[in-house]
């Protein structure tokens, strides 16, 4: 006759939960019934319960007499290193943030004004219209003195192109 298979993980979980009183009424009744009819499950339950009870042999240490005093001393030291935040300090921080926002707004506004001031007006465009129209011709010329020299007829002699 072959040995019955060991309890599965799920069966064992149910058994442990039963011993811990964690199952609902119906599930608890089912496990209790299995314990009653299956000696293998009953022995397993007894072993689990017995080894659980052995944990009571572990000593329960008491705090040393100075524990409370030492802990409170450390808390006192903590109070000294972390002074309470005063109300005026909170206002100081809020005022700092407000000042930063105002400053950023002013800088942004001034920058935009300067940028717009650099844009040419209609009057500027009318005054420079001839230059704009002949921009293609002026581009190869390095400076205005050269243009003025070109305007002097003695540089090219008396011959006119048509003669």
């Amino acid at each position, binding site marked *: 006759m072959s040995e019955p298979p060991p309890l599965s*993980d799920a069966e064992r979980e149910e058994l442990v939960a039963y011993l811990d009183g964690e199952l609902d009424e119906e599930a608890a009744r089912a496990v209790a019934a299995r314990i009653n009819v299956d000696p293998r499950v009953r*022995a*397993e339950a*007894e072993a689990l319960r017995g080894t659980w009870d*052995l944990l009571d042999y572990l000593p329960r*240490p008491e705090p040393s007499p100075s*524990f409370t005093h030492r802990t409170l001393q450390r808390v006192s030291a903590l109070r000294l290193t972390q002074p309470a935040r005063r109300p005026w300090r909170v206002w100081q921080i809020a005022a700092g943030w407000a000042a930063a926002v105002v400053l950023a707004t002013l800088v942004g506004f001034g920058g935009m004004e300067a940028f717009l001031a650099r844009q040419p007006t209609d009057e500027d465009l009318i005054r420079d219209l001839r230059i704009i129209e002949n921009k293609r011709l002026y581009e190869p010329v390095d400076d205005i003195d050269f243009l003025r020299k070109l305007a002097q007829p003695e540089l090219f002699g008396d011959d006119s192109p048509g003669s």
Partner: protein
Amino acid sequence: MESIGKTSTQLALRDPDVRLMHRVRNDEPGAFEELVTRYQHRLIAVMHHLVGDAEEAEDLAQEVFLRVYRARKKYHARSRFSTWLFTIANNLALNSLRNRQRKPVVPLEVRDSGPLGPRPAEQLARDRADQPAQCIQQQELAALVRQALDGLNERQRMAVILNKFEDMNYAEIAEVMGLSTKAVKSLLSRARTNLRNALAGYVHMDSQPVPKAPVDEDK
């Protein structure tokens, strides 16, 4: 927001420790000392079971109280006070145990003294297997139980300690450890199976010995 406030008020009415923590939050003189006095035994016991060293357990418990003090102004009761306290303790203790694993230290076991000489506990267990559990001295049995507990991984150990010594149900353990209730059920099942395998030889059983259950390391 209103519902949180309502929950907090209901909990404060039910749980005297929540009321005490509110007094700590309001910096009432003597309130924090009362909190330390009220919880130090439980906290140190849990830490001691977890790390196995009295001095380290006190250091960790002290650090938990300091964290509670630092966080007092942000405290809002959403569950029992002890659940919040042990959540802090769980985080701190698990970090400490992980750091210890990264920097292993030589355990200060008393191996060369006592009537047993320098034999490891496994040898002791084998030697005493045929004797009734009652004959084993209480201290020796405590050492074996300690060793079995140390054999669990830190999450299993924490779940066992909260369940056994703090009488927490699965839902409370789940909240403390940041797990689902189903995960706690599974964790405790594996932990108790491992404990059973390590300690079954020391339990007096009338029925036939059961075959060894498969060991789940959960690591």
